[in-house]
C-alpha cells in the first residue's frame, strides 16, 4: 500500500506504467479505522479506570492534534489534522500511560511525539520511530517516578496504589503473583478480560485482540506481525522459565503488559516497519526477542516500548536485506 503525501491529495493526476490497480484506500480512511479499532478498549478503560483515564486520553488526543496544527501552521504546510493520524498518536500514547499521570506530563509526551518524533522528521510517512512510543519513552526518562506509580480507583472516591502484574513478578516473584490473583486460571481470566492494573489501554487483552482482528480483516495490518511477536514472547518465556528450562508461564507473559497493544497497534504501524512481508516477520521476531530479554534480564519490568523502538532503528536495514525480486528478473 503506497502511503505517502501524494495520496492525500486525491485529485492529483499520477501517471505511471500500466497495469493500474485502483483502490479506495486513503490515509484518513486507514487512520480512522485504526482509531475505530481502539474504541472498545477505550470504552473499557474509561469504565474500569474512571475519570482519570478519560482525562488522560482527552489530554493526549487534544494536545497531539493541537501540536500538529501549530507545527503545520508555523512551517506553512498543509494542515492535515483531519486525517486522524495525530488523533491516533495521541490516543495510543495515552493508552500506554498510567491513568493517574498528571495532565501536563501527558501533554508534554504528546507534544514531543508529534513535534519531535513526527513533524521534525518531515511529517506523516517520514518518521523513523513510532511517535507514540517516543512520547512514552521520553516521559519514562523525564518523570520515572510518576510513570511507574500505578493507582487504581476502587470506588469513585477511593484510590489505592498497587503494582502491575509485571511489577509484582519482577520484584516479588511468581508465587506472589499467583497469590495476588488467587490461582493461575483466575489470573489468566483477569488478564484476558482486563480486570487488572496497568496502563490505560493495555489491560484488556480480549478487546485489543478484537480491534486487531478488525484491522487484519480490513487488510490494514498483516496477521503475521502480531502472531510472530506474541508467539516469540510466549515460546521464549516458556523455554527460559524461572526454575529451569521449559517452566515459564507463557500465557501470563503473552497477556501481560503492553504486549498485545504493542503487537497489534504499534508493531504494525505502516510507516515505521519494513515494507515486505518477510521484513515484517523479521521485525516482529526481533521485537519479541528484545521484549523477552528486557522482561527477564533487564532492569525494567516491561520492554515492549523499547523493543519496538529499537527495531524501528533497524527497519531500513531489514528493508535493504529482504529486497523483493524484481518481476521477471533472474537471481
Amino acid at each position, binding site marked *: 500500500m503506497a502511503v505517502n503525501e501524494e495520496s492525500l491529495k486525491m485529485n492529483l493526476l499520477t501517471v505511471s506504467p500500466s497495469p493500474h490497480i485502483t483502490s479506495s484506500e486513503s490515509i484518513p480512511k486507514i487512520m480512522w479505522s485504526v482509531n475505530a479499532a481502539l474504541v472498545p478498549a477505550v470504552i473499557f478503560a474509561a469504565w474500569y479506570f474512571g475519570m482519570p483515564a478519560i482525562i488522560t486520553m482527552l489530554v493526549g488526543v487534544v494536545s497531539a492534534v493541537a501540536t500538529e496544527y501549530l507545527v503545520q501552521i508555523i512551517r506553512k504546510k498543509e494542515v492535515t489534522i483531519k486525517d486522524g493520524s495525530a488523533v491516533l498518536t495521541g490516543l495510543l500514547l495515552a493508552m500506554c500511560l498510567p491513568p493517574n499521570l498528571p495532565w*501536563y*506530563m501527558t501533554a*508534554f509526551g504528546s507534544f514531543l511525539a508529534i513535534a*519531535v518524533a513526527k513533524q*521534525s522528521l518531515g511529517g506523516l510517512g517520514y518518521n523513523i520511530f513510532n511517535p507514540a512510543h517516543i512520547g512514552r519513552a*521520553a516521559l519514562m*526518562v*523525564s*518523570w520515572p517516578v510518576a510513570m511507574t506509580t500505578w493507582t487504581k480507583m476502587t470506588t469513585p472516591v477511593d484510590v489505592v496504589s498497587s503494582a502491575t502484574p509485571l511489577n509484582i513478578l519482577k520484584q516479588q516473584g511468581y508465587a506472589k503473583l499467583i497469590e495476588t490473583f488467587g490461582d493461575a486460571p483466575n489470573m489468566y481470566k483477569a488478564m484476558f478480560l482486563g480486570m487488572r492494573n496497568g496502563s490505560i489501554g493495555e489491560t484488556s487483552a480480549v478487546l485489543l485482540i478484537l480491534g486487531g482482528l478488525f484491522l487484519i480483516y480490513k487488510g490494514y495490518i498483516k496477521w503475521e506481525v502480531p502472531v510472530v511477536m506474541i508467539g516469540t514472547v510466549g515460546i521464549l518465556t516458556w523455554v527460559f522459565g524461572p526454575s529451569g528450562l521449559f517452566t515459564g508461564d507463557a500465557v501470563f507473559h503473552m497477556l501481560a503488559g503492553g504486549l498485545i497493544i504493542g503487537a497489534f497497534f504499534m508493531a504494525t504501524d505502516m510507516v515505521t516497519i519494513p515494507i515486505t512481508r518477510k521484513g515484517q516477520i523479521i521485525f516482529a521476531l526481533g521485537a519479541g526477542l528484545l521484549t523477552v530479554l528486557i522482561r527477564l534480564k533487564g532492569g525494567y519490568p516491561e520492554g515492549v516500548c523499547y523493543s519496538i523502538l529499537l527495531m524501528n532503528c533497524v527497519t531500513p536495514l531489514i528493508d535493504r536485506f529482504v529486497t523483493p525480486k524484481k518481476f521477471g528478473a533472474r537471481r
Partner: protein
Amino acid sequence: MKELWSIFNKGLILENPIFVLALSLCPALAVTSSVIVSLTMGLTVMFVITANNTVVSIVRNLVNPKVRVPVYIVSIATIVTVAQLVLQAYLPDLYKALGIYLALVVVFAIILARAEVFASKNGVIRSFFDGLGMGTGFLIAMLIIGAIREIIGSGTFLGIQVMPASYNAPLMLVLPAGAFILIGYLVAGCKMLVQHIEKSKA
C-alpha cells in the same frame, strides 16, 4: 582592523564551532547540564584555542609539515595542562565537576581544526583573533545549551531557583539524550539565522 573584526566575527554565528561546524559536540552534550559548568568549560576552551592558535602561528614556519600534527598536540596538551592546574588550584569544585572532560580538551576537534585550517597558514595576530572568535562562539553556544538545560531540566539558573517551587522538571533535559535533541533544534535555529544573514547581505 576591519579584517580582524571579520575574522573574529565569523566564529560567533556564521561558523559557530558547535552549531555550524558541528565540531566538539562531546562537551556540548556532556558538560552543559548547568550554566556554571558550561561557563567554565567555555572559558577554558576559549583560552586554550586562542593560546594554541598563537603558538602554532609562531612556530608554523619552523616545523616540518610532516610532523606538524604531533607538534600541535604537544602545544595543546601543554596549554590544557596549564588551564587544568589553574582550575585545580583556584576552583577545585568546578575542577571536580568537569572531571575527565577537562583533560579531554586536548583532543577537542575544534582546537586542532583551527590550528590546521587557520593558524598554520596565517600570521600571529590574525590567528589570535581567529582563536578568540571561535572560542567566543564556543562559549556562547555552551552558555545557550547550559542555560536552557538548567532552566527547564532543573528549574534553576546559576543555582538560583527561577521556576515556581511546584515545577516538576523533566529529567530528560538533564540527561545527554535531551541535550542531543535540544542541540538538534538549536542547530536548525542557527541555520535559519545564517540563511537570514546571508539573504540580507545579498
